């Protein structure tokens, strides 16, 4: 489904990604962990073509999105993204936020999209807030609207960039529950997060990144409790 091959990314002199390769199969849930500055978010943003790679290739369903001839907007329409700071559109209601993608990008009829959007808001548990503006919602509610907004495009893969790290502790669970449900339904997901509970419950694999490279990967139980690499061990000892 997603294949990342030897990807490099530089910001000026800063070499953020130093040859990252991994593969995510359909229906897999991959959790990426690692210290801040390891390049996790940059990696995710490259998969959504929000950042241009400086070397290597990223394939989504066999299509090379680093190819300049490929229509980036079409790629992005098939890849859902959830951000750390939600990035809801403040001038639109929750419902309008969810409807916007299909209406504007896919040019689907409003009535049909409205039904779909209400279904999705119901799925993330905030149907009753459909007419509220983002500023009237709590952080957890905003993030769930953001997930519904991404799902409205019926993406083939969902990317989560630290979806719970800007949330107050009591709101983390409501967002994770939605993500767990999504994983159980078979959605392909790549998640940058340090939520151990989530990783243990649904992750098919955990990838540990440090200093622009993948240090090791494996099942959650192994990476969290019995990693091979000393750097992974050091990191886990700090966050556990």
């Amino acid at each position, binding site marked *: 489904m997603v294949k990342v091959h030897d990807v490099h990314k530089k910001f000026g002199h800063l070499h953020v990604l130093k040859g990252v390769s991994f593969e995510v199969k359909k229906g897999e849930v991959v959790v990426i962990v690692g210290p801040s500055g390891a390049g996790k978010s940059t990696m995710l943003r490259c998969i959504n073509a929000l950042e241009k790679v400086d070397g290597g290739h990223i394939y989504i369903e066999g299509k090379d999105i680093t190819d300049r001839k490929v229509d980036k907007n079409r790629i*992005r329409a098939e890849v859902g993204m959830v951000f750390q700071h939600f990035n809801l*559109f403040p*001038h639109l209601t929750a419902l309008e936020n969810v409807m916007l993608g299909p209406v504007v*990008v896919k040019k689907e009829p409003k009535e049909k999209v409205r039904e779909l959007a209400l279904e999705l808001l119901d799925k993330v548990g905030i149907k009753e807030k459909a007419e509220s*503006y983002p500023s009237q919602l709590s952080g957890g509610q905003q993030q769930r609207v953001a997930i519904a907004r991404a799902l409205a495009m019926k993406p083939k893969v969902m990317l989560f960039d630290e979806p719970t790290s800007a949330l107050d502790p009591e709101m983390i669970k409501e967002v994770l529950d939605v993500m767990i449900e999504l994983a159980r339904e078979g959605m392909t997901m790549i998640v940058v997060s340090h939520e151990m509970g989530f990783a243990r419950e649904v992750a098919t694999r955990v990838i540990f990144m440090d200093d622009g490279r993948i240090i090791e990967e494996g099942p959650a139980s192994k990476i969290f409790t019995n990693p091979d690499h000393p750097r992974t061990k050091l990191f886990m000892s700090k966050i556990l």
Partner: protein
Amino acid sequence: MCGQASPWRSLPTHQKSRRSIIISDSKFTLRSFVILFVFFLILFLGAYLIQAKDIYNWHWQDIPPVLPVFLKAAVLTLEVSAVSTIVAILIGVIGGLMKISSEPALRLLASVYVESIRNTPLLIQIFIVYFFIATIFNMSAFQAAVFALSVFEGAYVTEIVRAGIQSIPRGQWEAAYSLGMNYFQVMRHIILPQAFRVIIPPLAGQFISLIKDSSLVSVMSLPELTLTGRQINSRIFRPFEVWFTVAALYFVMTTTLSVFTHYLERRMRVNGKST
């Protein structure tokens, strides 16, 4: 995010509100009335002395007969200003988009336009338009006035639009792009509607100052308020009365607009929810 009232925040707010009581919430006292009374007394005495000593004879009774002419001229001033503002907004949106473009040539062109307009006097620009451009293209006085004022105003609107667009956080672009929207869709549905709210107050301010700046197009022999003032003055020769009337008419137009703007701003703040 969500505005929870924190007990820690109440302390500095409280201090601030106490300070503002001293400065702005103080009441009118007898002393205030005495100060105002003395001020207006001096003003009135001055006017009386001018009359009594035969320095200047007030002839306010000459103004009402010419008032309809003034009002017609004021309407023309408003027309020129309004049409110029509309054209200036078009120029400003295009200029603002050029200024944030990823193409350096477009950015350069927009900068050259903005800087050359903002760093030369409007009166000189009006001369250039009137004696050169308007002659070549055979423009009427009204067209030339609109041309000069909107090109002038467009430079300022360009900067307002640029600042408005850049005030929208990058996350909004990214979220919209991640849904698969293209540049124009992001602009139309996400950025401009939000930027518009930021842009309205300074834009209204520009429109108000344009009404005042439009007095300069009187040199184009367009019978707007200022030129009409000059013509009527040369007919009835009452300079103080005429120019006070002209000033008062400008004042009424601009203050009416700024009151309306405040109302508009307040209404948008109620409707527009922002994080």
